[in-house]
């Protein structure tokens, strides 16, 4: 249970087409991440699936049934919001039990499910506190707890980690992944952070201006971006994109080389190091190369290039080629 199919789904606010028309199938049990820059329509798409917004046209099928006009509560989905949206006047226990109470479940069953969820999420000792007394990470867990007790056919996450600090984010990322592995329920996760997308997803949907740019497994997108947008968006630091004579050598309008696919030492390109960041394990260098522009290079940690040094660079790995319209060749 938990297959979601979008057919020609369109959403416009007045004159503005936020989503001009999307077809997408999400298989049962998949962890799908919608990723894209802010304003690309990823949150709107999630809210359309949730039923919090009406579709202007198109069909949303959930588990083979047309859910386009169903109210949110009857779609069998659970959502975790960016702000967690916990009910501040209820204890953690009541928060988690709220969907069960709304479904009219009897008290004993409610308690059982809440206890079970609390145990999974390490919330047992906080059950009688209010959200205001919890840390950010704990609130996040409560929001997840409220979602899992309903045993929904799919979970929707709307940028759930963006309010957490960096260290907690990594921890919660793993917890959500583990949750997915143990529940095996469909999860749709919206983020603008491509690291989250890469680490968590079975399938990434890259969105831009309301359109799907590419759908695929993380490494597929990384290794075979189908256009310039995906090439530039996936991967950190960004892929180097080179136009002009150097690109023409490869019979392309633009070529892309990932920073880790450039070696320092010997090679055809010579440039001056502008910025160098030494992380210990890696060193990121910005090198300006005559006739090409500034290249970002990911070198091993032992490379000690400093500002102003002259270095020689060589491409070592896949060179992505794109035509004048930005499509991969």
């Amino acid at each position, binding site marked *: 249970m938990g297959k979601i199919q979008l057919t020609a789904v369109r959403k416009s606010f007045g004159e503005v087409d936020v989503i001009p028309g999307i077809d997408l199938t999400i298989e049962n049990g998949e962890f799908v991440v919608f990723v894209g820059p802010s304003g690309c329509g990823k949150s709107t798409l999630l809210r359309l699936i949730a*039923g*919090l*917004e*009406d579709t202007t046209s198109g069909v949303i099928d959930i588990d083979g049934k047309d859910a386009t006009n169903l*109210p949110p509560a009857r779609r069998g989905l659970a959502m975790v919001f960016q702000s967690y949206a916990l009910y501040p006047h209820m204890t953690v226990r009541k928060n988690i039990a709220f969907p069960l109470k709304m479904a009219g479940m009897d008290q004993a069953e409610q308690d059982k499910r809440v206890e079970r969820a609390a145990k999974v999420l390490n919330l047992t000792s906080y059950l009688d506190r209010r959200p205001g007394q919890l840390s950010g990470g704990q609130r996040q867990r409560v929001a997840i707890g409220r979602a899992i007790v309903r045993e929904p056919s799919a979970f929707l996450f709307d940028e759930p980690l963006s309010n957490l600090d960096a260290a907690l984010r990594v921890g919660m990322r793993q917890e959500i992944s583990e949750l997915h592995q143990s529940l095996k329920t469909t999860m749709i996760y919206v983020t603008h952070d491509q690291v989250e997308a890469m680490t968590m997803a079975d399938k990434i949907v890259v969105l831009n201006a309301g359109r799907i740019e590419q759908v695929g497994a993380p490494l597929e997108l990384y290794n075979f971006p189908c256009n310039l947008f995906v090439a530039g968006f996936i991967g950190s630091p960004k892929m180097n994109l080179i136009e002009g004579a150097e690109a023409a050598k490869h019979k392309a309008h633009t070529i892309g080389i990932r920073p880790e696919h450039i070696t320092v030492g010997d090679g055809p390109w010579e440039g001056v190091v502008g910025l160098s960041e030494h992380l210990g394990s890696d060193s990121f260098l910005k090198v300006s190369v005559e006739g090409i522009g500034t290249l970002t290079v990911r070198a091993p940690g032992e490379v000690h290039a400093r500002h102003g040094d002259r270095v020689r660079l060589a491409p070592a790995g896949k060179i992505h080629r794109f035509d004048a319209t930005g499509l991969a060749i």
Partner: protein
Amino acid sequence: MSTHSSRLAARLMVAPSVALLLIWMIVPLAMTLYYSFRFYRLLSPDRTGWVGFNNYLWFMNAPDFWLALFNTLTLVGGVLIITVILGTLIALLIDQPVKGQGLLRILIIAPFFVMPPVAASIWENLFMHPQNGLFSAVSRGFGAQPILFLEDYPMLSVIGIVSWEWLPFATLILLTALQSLSSEQLEAAEMDGASAFSRFRYIILPHMTRAITVVILIQTIFLLGIFGEIYTTTQGGPGSASTTLPYMIFKQAIVAKDIGRAAAGGIIAVILANIVAYFLMRGLGRNLDS
């Protein structure tokens, strides 16, 4: 947040209050409009009929009319100026770290709880009365003649009384606004070399714009209809010196028992209120969007 069903539900939920307010506004207004074109005097019930704009013409040509109009605007404007300026000053004062702020607030808010007839009668009898009032005692203490407040300065006296009633409202709203100003902003301004006056002018005052807007908006709504204070104290006098538009209409209806002319006055007052409302909403509505 917006789906068809929730929008429909929303319309249904707004409907009762809109309908009620519409009835509450339209029905009396329509009746007033109707009477304003009729000959309708309680003292001569046999004579009836349409009189065209005569009631309006009479009302606008009445010797008191322009004075009443002027007095109405003076009252609203005077009270607004006094309460906003004094309210700002008092708010700035109480916002300092003073001892017993809680009790201070209780004392300052008190006039707001005093119903208008009581407020007016306290001031009229206990303070402004030429023989027994406290003010006359003070004057005599200095060897001066008591000031005849309600006789010699009727409008000023009424403005004073109404300002006292509304000062707590203005002060508390402005104080709340002041307290929400982050001290970091002021400290930054201080680091930038701004003097106390500049800090007030460029940091504090802009921060309070919204609050001042609310004060003006809400107070104007209540002040345009001020009636009880005048009725209790000066009865519009001496002569017509403190007659406002509402009071003039009241006199025409209750004393002269001329419903037709009073209704015409009522329509004029409604038009005036709408003009004021229009300018108020246009000028201030912007400040309310946040």
